[in-house]
């Protein structure tokens, strides 16, 4: 996972995504607004429509205890056990395209720079 971090952060800097040392990446936080209605970023806050995205990078797919995942995502998890950078990128681009039948209602993020900024932001939250 760490090997993937360096190029991702560099890409985010190049895109002007970071606000400064110790601060959250601005573009990533803006990108997260498209997720905000259904996902929290606080650890353990899983009472929204979607599970918390705290620590999502590297986390097991469909594995938050007690969360009611769709059958489609559970099946997907059997073949794709972890939310790698690449997998999050593909899912954010087209959720229903990657996981047909997912209950997540999001049309996708076509701009790869926005997706990278989002992933960098989520990673910056720790977890």
């Amino acid at each position: 996972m760490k090997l993937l971090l360096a190029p991702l952060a560099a890409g985010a800097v190049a895109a002007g995504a970071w606000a400064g040392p110790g601060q959250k990446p601005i573009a990533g936080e803006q990108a997260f607004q498209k997720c905000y209605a259904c996902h929290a970023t606080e650890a353990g806050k899983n009472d929204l429509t979607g599970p918390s995205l705290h620590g999502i990078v590297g986390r097991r797919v469909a594995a938050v205890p007690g969360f009611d995942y769709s059958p489609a995502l559970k099946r997907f998890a059997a073949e794709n056990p972890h939310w790698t950078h690449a997998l999050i990128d593909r899912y954010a681009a087209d959720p229903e395209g990657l996981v047909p039948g997912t209950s997540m209602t999001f049309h996708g993020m076509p701009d790869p720079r926005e997706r990278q900024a989002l992933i960098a932001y989520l990673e910056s939250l720790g977890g």
Partner: protein
Amino acid sequence: MRFFSILLASVALGCASAASAQSPDTQIFQLPEGARVHDVAPAPDGTIWYTAQRQGALGILDPKSGKIRQIPLGPNSAPHGVIQGPDGAAWITDGGQNAIVRFDPKTEKIDVWKLPEEVGYANLNTGAFDGDGIHWFTGQNGIYGRIDPKTGKIDVFKDPDGRGPYGIAATPNGDIYYVSLAGSHLAKIDRVSGAATIIEPPTPAQGARRVWSDSKGNLWVSEWNSGNLSRYTPATGEWKVWRLPGEKPKAYAVYVDERDIVWVTDFAANATLTFDPATGQWTTIKGSEEGANVRQILGRPGEVYLPESGTNRIMVVRTSKK
């Protein structure tokens, strides 16, 4: 604007669950690849409008000929909801453009009203017209608002509970109610001041997703988290709650047809259910394929439209012989 050939299939679907035996008259239309239909609405000329969310377009399906056209709505468009306004135009809540979009079917003119800059990304969801012809809308990131079609003036209000405003509907007397998925509430809007009064359903954290009114002005709510269908009677303030049949139901869309039959989709069962409040009887219409994911329902007398976001199809259910 492109024309597409379509796959057209008539099927007789079986019924399941605690349902009466019935083979509804249905027809399925395959939409252009990648359109990813979200919502539908009847158009004045008998065609069906749909939002092609992935392609930033308004689709027009002629169920008689099977012809489909798609009208691009603008850069970055990702339309979620569509309804027919009292002016006969399509009114679209466009999350991608963060705007309310109007399509005039006579002139094909498109008007785009972007939300004020200071509102930020609203995640626009659904719209409804009140009795005075004002268009009200919800934004899942925690807002609701209105636009006056005559002036284009937009007012945006914050939901008292923050994120979550989702479905919205008008009652026969022109009042507006919306529900909050994350806030788990119903709300009535004061059409003058714009203030929202929260009405708590009896089931905590139920995840009120969509709402529709019956002919008497009762509000029917689909509860995503609880799997319930609930009814609020404004005249008395009473609630009544029904659990959807089946295991772990997930109620998404709700609609009440002209006969006051309630339609509700259950993601867990991959089905659309009808419920007759007079008899308490449920019937089940299975999705055309696994993972159909019907996220909204609308229709006109004699017809109900089920947009399947998962299969990119529209199922037309004919409820009366013509």
